[in-house]
């Protein structure tokens, strides 16, 4: 920050700074909130955490939204938004089912690849329109939300994919576990770690932050803005595609409304997790924790005696609270930096 004197920092000071940074990080706050919710709910009903089903559902159900939230975070960091992820998920989930029905005996790993590629293709459409035509992402993804969902309904007709149409071992993936952790959650965690590492340590990832921070400056600086934005949307689309395949594994029955409304959860999770809607800051870890927080609250509400009809309202309050908090923190940081600058100028 504003270390004006070049002190040699001891290892101890470095550790303290690191711990202090961790404690003050936005993500830690969300993590604490999540732990608090789990503790309160488990106190009311120990089955929430300690039963076999409870623990599995706790980890399993949010992992799908977590994938969407990670993709959304990547896009929001570049100062865009992707509202079409719900429709992409639905379309990919239906396609997964169709692939299994039309090509019996196809290996599961191929279906995964097909799903991810299909999602990437849908994301590419978004990215191309936004990056090349320089049109606001809000409008384009609003349009593709409509269009993809319409294609999904058209394709589905009045049909549905039933659980009996899918191969048993694919469905078993939906609830299988390695140790105590469900397989789907492990997949989502791997994706999360990869995304987090890329955004923090690779140049491409850091450039995304630069683009979101100030697109004009990034352009003048010579960063390949068009390419990065395109890649961001392709990533968001592929993660939505992967989530679609996992949705098919988890729920088994897929109708034309699959994933409807999930884009709001994804954006909400990212915003709650500290990704600023104006771009340039935040991390995928925060978005992931935000996704878990959101969905755990949803599941905890009925146990705490609150009608689960109120969960949307809770999500809304959390989103508004998160952005107000972000704003207050940003104002404070600006004030501190201005003060430091004034002090330095003495």
């Amino acid at each position, binding site marked *: 920050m504003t270390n004006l004197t070049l002190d040699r920092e001891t290892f101890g000071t470095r550790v303290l700074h690191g711990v202090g940074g961790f404690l003050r990080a936005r993500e830690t706050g969300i993590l604490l909130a999540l732990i608090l919710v789990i503790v309160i709910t488990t106190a009311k009903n120990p089955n929430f955490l300690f039963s076999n089903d409870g623990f599995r559902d706790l980890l399993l159900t949010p992992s799908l939204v977590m994938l969407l939230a990670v993709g959304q975070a990547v896009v929001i960091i570049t100062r865009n938004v992707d509202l079409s992820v719900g429709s992409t998920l639905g379309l990919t989930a239906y396609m997964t089912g169709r692939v299994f029905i039309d090509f019996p005996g196809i290996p599961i790993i191929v279906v995964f690849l097909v799903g991810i590629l299909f999602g990437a293709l849908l994301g590419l459409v978004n990215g191309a329109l936004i990056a090349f035509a320089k049109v606001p992402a809000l409008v384009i993804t609003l349009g593709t939300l409509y269009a993809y969902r319409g294609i999904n309904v058209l394709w589905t007709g009045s049909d549905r994919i039933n659980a009996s149409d899918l191969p048993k071992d694919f469905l078993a993936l939906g609830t299988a576990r390695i140790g105590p952790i469900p397989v789907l959650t492990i997949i989502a965690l791997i994706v999360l770690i990869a995304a987090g590492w890329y955004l923090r340590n690779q140049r491409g990832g850091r450039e995304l932050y630069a683009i979101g921070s100030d697109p004009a400056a990034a352009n003048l600086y010579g960063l390949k803005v068009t390419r990065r934005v395109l890649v961001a949307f392709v990533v968001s689309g592929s993660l939505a595609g992967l989530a679609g395949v996992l949705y098919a594994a988890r729920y088994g029955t897929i109708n034309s409304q699959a994933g409807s409304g999930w884009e709001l959860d994804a954006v909400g999770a990212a915003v709650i997790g500290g990704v600023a809607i104006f771009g340039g800051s935040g991390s995928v870890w925060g978005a992931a924790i935000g996704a878990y927080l959101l969905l755990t609250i949803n599941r905890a509400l009925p146990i705490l005696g609150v009608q689960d009809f109120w969960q949307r309202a809770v999500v809304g309050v959390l989103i508004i609270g998160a*952005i107000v908090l972000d704003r207050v923190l940003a104002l404070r940081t600006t004030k501190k930096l201005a003060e430091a600058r004034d002090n330095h100028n003495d």
Partner: protein
Amino acid sequence: MTELTANTAVMRTYKEYGRPLWQRILFTREAAVYGALILVIIVASATVRNFATPITLNYLLLDITPILLIALPMTLVIITGEIDLSVASIVGLSSVTLGTLHQGGLPIEAAGLAALVVGAIAGAINGFLITVVGLPSLAVTIGTLALYRGLAVGLLGTTAVTQYTEFWKDLAKSKIGGTTIPSVMILFVILALVFAILLHFTAFGRGVFAIGLSPEAARFSGISVERTKFILFVLSGVVSALAGIYYTLRFGSARGDNATGLELSVIAAVLLGGVSIFGGRGALHGVIAGVLLIGTLGSALRLASITSDVINIITGTLLVASVVSTSVLAWVRRKRIRPGGKKPGSAADTKG
């Protein structure tokens, strides 16, 4: 004085005054929408059975009235460069307020008034968060979209309140005299005139355009940017509540998830009608034509037994095409002005 406007970094000219008047009227975005509307009407009347019947116009107008109503304040909001995604949730909330209060014994007039007040408060909360706290409207209205919808669903669960006095239900669907035009059109025309005068013929309206073009310059010109935006969001809330009351009475059913997804139709129609998403440009008559275009297209397709998902695909594609085309046209125009000159993309847009 003109130095101020000439020095703005964004080179957006909307009318090249060097062109003759007929070109300036016919080659505009709005004229294109009118043309498309007339084309659709002609083609549909010729090819779709039962389209050119009196009852079609009636159902069409009844169906698109909520969108028509909400598109009016939404136009002003988008022209200032903001956006309001929570309008459909305010429709739902006002619908639920009307239903629960009426079911609880309040006469329907009082319940309706309460619903309007709820809408105003909802809009005021939006406005407060955006103007006073300074949050971006996209994020705030995504949050309030969830919040208001959540309140609406929370209050009623998934039950619907379906008992209303016949008088009001019939009024919502009644027709003017012997024609098949619904009476709500009178309400809409009055509101449209009010908004048109507000936007195009008053200083407030010019302030709205100025804010969209450059909030800083507008502030220096003496326009109270915060107050204008606040008023617009409150208006948006009240009109959405009005649309909610109409929706409830027309379908005879107040439900928490009424009108889910309506905001997409409104924004699609507004953008189709020539309002620029970047702000500062647009006209109300274009927006009305845009809503009519989407409504007529939908009605014709439904009558031709084409399912509503295809209609959604077309709406989504239209929305994308309308915004991309503006961009493409602007790029073409820039290339023509500077043949063989600098690359157009380097003068970076400050917005979006």
